Every structure is written in structure tokens, then in C-alpha cells.
């Protein structure tokens, strides 16, 4: 209840959020086909990046298991897409990812820092190779065709997940849960000493972030007509959310959204304008961002605001604005 009260105390942000959702909800009626496809890609990355940030943002445990959770969802749709409706697939994708996340969480309790990163990367890769092997030697077929609902359905399902992720991230951030995760990130031993059940919170946070990745995967599978393990468990899906979150900045909720949106747009622009140099330019962008924008776009913006507010004219303007 306190969370609701807090949300109501920030009317501007609340109105902005609701307005954004309404605009996105009616966009497909007016937008071009290509715009809807771009929006689908953006929403997918927003979902993945936000859910990644729920756990990895405050705790500093960098997870590269995203491709694993996403891929489980994708594969679920690839296998059962003809028998089950999309909402069931999305829920199942989320559920199986949750189970997988709890299992990984239990196995990696002792691992910290780079060992955790490597283990989660290993999970995604092991899943990919195991399914490839299973299909090649046991069932004898690699890859499947998916014939799902159209782009608009995919779009609305993704938007639904986006709303859920956003609300979840907000609730986590503004409750004891978020504080506990923050404490674990700052000093895990100290957090344990003041009575935080570190194990429980870590697994719960990790599981929570996995649910939305699995659901997003189950929905996104319909965007591709052909799916095999290499597509479903593409390692880039593990790396991009990390980059996008850091690019945007993880100190506020808007960071991952901003990061994912701008990064995706940049990526689309570079792919279409410079198909041969796209990766090169992406790499250079990445290096520059990490070197010179350590706190992401949010950090850059707050630094700009700070610098601007030091200029005399603007200072006076703000002062007059405040007194009026």
C-alpha cells in the first residue's frame, strides 16, 4: 500500500507513464507497418533490459543467463506453438524460466563476481548445445517452423509484459525487497549480519527477473518463421541487455528504458545505413560510452543539468520560476 501512496506522490511521473502506455497502445492503428516492427524490437529490448536490471542493477551480480531464459521461452513456442494459445505459452515460458532461475540460484550461492558471470554464461551455452545435440542425435531434426499470430498480436502481448515489468520493477525498488537487494550489492556480508536473508532475496530477485525474460521469449518466437537453438539462444541476447542498462544508467527506472530504446534505434539506423561497418561503429560506440559515460545517459543528463544550473542567467530564471 505504501508503494501506491508513493506512486501517487509523484503525479508527473505517473501521468507520463500512463500517457506513454496509452500512446503505445493506440500506435498500431495509426503507424506504418515498419514502425510497428521497430516498436516490437524496442519493446523486446526494453523488457529484457528492465527485467535484467531488477536483479543485476542493485546487486551488481552481472547475469549473462538472459539468453538462456529468453531461449527457453522461444523454444517453448517453437515446440508447442500449434497446440497452445499465446497467453498460455507466455505464462509457461515465464514459469519454466523461473524454475530454471531458482535452480541456477541454488547452484551459484557460493559464486561471486566474475565466477557468477561465467557460470550464467555457461548455462545459456550449455542449454543451446544440449538442445542442438538432442535434436541432431535423438529426434533427427534441427530447427522448427513457427506460424504464429500477426505482428499486432505480438506487439500487444509485449506491451502487456512491458507494463508488468515496469510495475514490478517499481514495486521492488520502493519496498524492503529492493532495499535488501541494494544492501546485498553494497556489502553482502554486512547485509547478512543485519538480518537480511541474503540467499532468499538473491534467489527471489533472480527468479523474478527471469520470469519476464521467458515470457518475452515465448512471445517473440512468433516474429521469426524459422527457429533453431542457435537463433533461440543467441549469445547476443545475454550481452545486449547488460550494455543497454549500463548505456542508460541503472540508478533510476527510466535508465534501462532510455538505454534500450536509444540503443535499439541506433542499431537499426546503423544496420540500414552502414550494413558493412555496423559492428565496427557499434563497437566504437560501446567503448566510448563505457570510457566516458560511466553512469550512463542518466549520469550525463544530471551532469548537464548541474552544469547548466551553474550558468547565471539560468540560475536566475530558475529562482524566479520557483518564487512565482
Amino acid at each position, binding site marked *: 500500500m505504501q508503494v501506491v501512496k508513493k506512486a501517487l506522490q509523484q503525479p508527473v511521473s505517473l501521468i507520463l507513464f500512463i500517457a506513454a502506455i496509452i500512446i503505445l497502445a493506440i500506435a498500431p492503428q495509426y503507424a506504418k507497418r515498419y514502425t510497428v516492427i521497430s516498436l516490437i524490437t524496442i519493446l523486446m529490448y526494453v523488457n529484457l533490459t528492465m527485467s535484467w536490471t531488477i536483479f543485476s542493477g542493485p546487486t*551488481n551480480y*552481472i547475469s549473462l543467463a538472459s539468453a538462456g531464459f529468453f531461449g527457453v521461452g522461444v523454444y517453448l513456442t517453437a515446440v508447442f506453438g500449434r497446440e497452445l494459445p499465446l497467453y498460455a505459452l507466455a505464462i509457461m515460458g515465464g514459469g519454466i524460466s523461473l524454475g530454471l532461475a531458482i535452480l541456477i540460484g541454488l*547452484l*551459484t550461492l*557460493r*559464486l*561471486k*563476481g*566474475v*565466477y557468477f*558471470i*561465467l*557460470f550464467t554464461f*555457461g*548455462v545459456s*551455452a*550449455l542449454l543451446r*548445445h*544440449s538442445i542442438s*545435440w538432442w535434436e*541432431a*542425435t535423438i529426434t533427427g531434426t534441427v530447427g522448427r517452423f513457427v506460424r504464429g499470430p500477426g505482428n499486432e498480436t505480438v506487439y500487444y502481448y509485449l506491451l502487456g509484459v512491458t507494463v508488468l515489468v515496469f510495475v514490478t520493477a517499481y514495486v521492488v525498488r520502493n519496498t524492503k525487497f529492493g532495499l535488501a537487494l541494494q544492501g546485498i550489492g553494497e556489502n553482502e556480508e554486512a547485509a547478512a549480519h543485519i538480518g537480511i536473508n541474503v540467499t532468499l532475496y538473491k534467489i527471489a530477485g533472480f527468479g523474478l527477473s527471469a520470469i519476464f525474460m521467458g515470457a518475452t521469449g515465448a512471445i517473440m518466437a512468433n516474429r521469426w518463421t524459422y527457429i533453431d537453438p542457435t537463433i533461440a539462444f543467441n*549469445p547476443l541476447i545475454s*550481452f545486449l541487455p*547488460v*550494455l543497454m542498462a*549500463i548505456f542508460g544508467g541503472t540508478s533510476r527506472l527510466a535508465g534501462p528504458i532510455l538505454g534500450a530504446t536509444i540503443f535499439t534505434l541506433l542499431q537499426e539506423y546503423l544496420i540500414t545505413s552502414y550494413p*558493412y*561497418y*555496423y*559492428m*565496427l561503429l*557499434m*563497437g*566504437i*560506440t*560501446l*567503448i566510448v560510452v*563505457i*570510457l566516458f559515460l*560511466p553512469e550512463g545517459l542518466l549520469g550525463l543528463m544530471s551532469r548537464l543539468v548541474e552544469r547548466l544550473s551553474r550558468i547565471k542567467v539560468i540560475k536566475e530564471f530558475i529562482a524566479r520560476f520557483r518564487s512565482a
Partner: protein
Amino acid sequence: MFANFLDIVITGLILGGIYALVAVGLNLQYGVGRVLNVAHGEFIMLGAFLTFSLFTQFNVNPLLALLIIGPGLFLIGYVVHQILFQYLRSTSITTDIFSGRSLLVSFGLLFVTQNIMLIVWGADLRQYTYLNNSISIFGTRYAMNRIVALIFAVGISVGFYLFINRSRLGKAIRAAAEDAEMANIVGVNIRQVLGICFGLGAMLAGMAGMLISLMFQLQASRGLEYTVIAIVVVVFGGLGSINGSLIGGFILGLVISFVNFLDPSLSLIAFYAIFMLLLIVRPSGILGRRAHAGR
């Protein structure tokens, strides 16, 4: 039976030698410098492609190409470290933050290097033939280039082992791997040593690339596979333990060669399974000290 066994051992030693070189290179960069360089595999492919071009365009013997590729990649690695990672280190507050940020920067490096290779050499598979006449050992015939690769892989590994364990610079590197701050206090020029370590890592990657180009087809996008192998071997041998990487490389090479003999499609799964089991059971690796695991 004996022929099979010998075949497994020879393949295992070749793979092991390559694994060892690749892993020692990465261990110098991560274990000492705390840079988990995911672009390591790209340096390997760069070495392989340079050998390819030197051989096909300028008729340079691949084994002599080592003399160009080794110093060349050392220089690239050294410069990259002193420009990018040194700056990153000086602007990061803690080692953890530095590790995370340097991982992401090396991803950028991966994209850049891979793309340059795609532009220069294209996306197709490349291969050249050198020394592919066969010789017979105990009645089984082996391609000459595999035997040469075996000799070079083992030779470079032994040479590097001696360098690390016997030379003055090797001692400084081992000291920096144990405790960089302490090493700095007792008079090791840590900035210089870290740069040299990164350069040596790139050099070993390039040399491994030359050995790979002797036997396998090359493709610009294959680098990440080798990075993953290197990471697994480094963890297996213990982070920061150069000797662990050398021994671990050969052990894993033999294991993978045996799995390959049973069922080639299982080898990647075996690789990841060993890796994850190891992380759960003994994250500090076979020769690593427990203290490293917490970092």
C-alpha cells in the same frame, strides 16, 4: 587399439597445446590485469588470418611468420592496454567496477576487431595447405602439419613456462598476479608490467592462431569459440595461476580429444559440463588458491 590410443593422445596434445597457449594468454590479461578480455579470440583469429595472408600473398613460411606475428600482436596488445584499459583503471573506484567496465570495453574491442577482419578477409571460410604430406608413426599415418603444430605448441608452452618461472620479468609478473599493490610497493613498475602482460597475452593468442591456421579452416566470426575455450581452461587451472593454465590446457585437451573419439557432437557439451561442474565444486581451479575465489 594402440593406434587409436596414440591418435587420441596426439590429437589431445595438439589441442592441449593450443588450449594452453590461449589460456595462458587470457590468464595474463585477467589473472594479472583483471581484464576479462572477451576479444581474446579475435586476436587468435587475427594471428591466423595474418599467417594466411603472409603465406598466400607473400609466400612467407607460416612457421617463420611467427617472428612477425608475435611481436606485431604484442605491440597491438600493449598499445590497446596503455590507451584504453589504463585510462579505465585510473577512472574506476574499485577493482570490481574496473572488472565490469573492462569486460564491456573488451566487448567493444571484439566488435571492432571482428568487423575489421570481416572487411579485410570477408566472411568466407579460408584455408591454405602447407606441409600436408603424411608421415608414419608406429604404422599410422599423420599429416605432417599436425606433427609440426604439436612440436610448436609444446615448444612454445615449455618456453613460456621457463620464461615465467625463471626470468626476472616472469617473477615480476607472478608477483603482480599474487598482489598487484604489494608488488608495486616492493618496486615492480606495475603500469609497465600490466601493459606487458596484456601484450604477451595478445602475442600468445596470435601464436595459437598461427597453429590453428595450420590445421583448421578459418572464419572471422569464430573468435568467440576460442575465447570461451580460453575462459574454461583459465578457470580450470585457477585464475592468476599461469602454471595451472599450462597444465590445465593439456589435461582438457586430452579429455576433449577422448570425448571427440567417442562422439564428436558431444565435445562442446562435455566442455560446458566440465566447466560448470568445476565452478560449483572447486571455483578456484586445480592449482588456484582458495583466496582467489572470493574476488
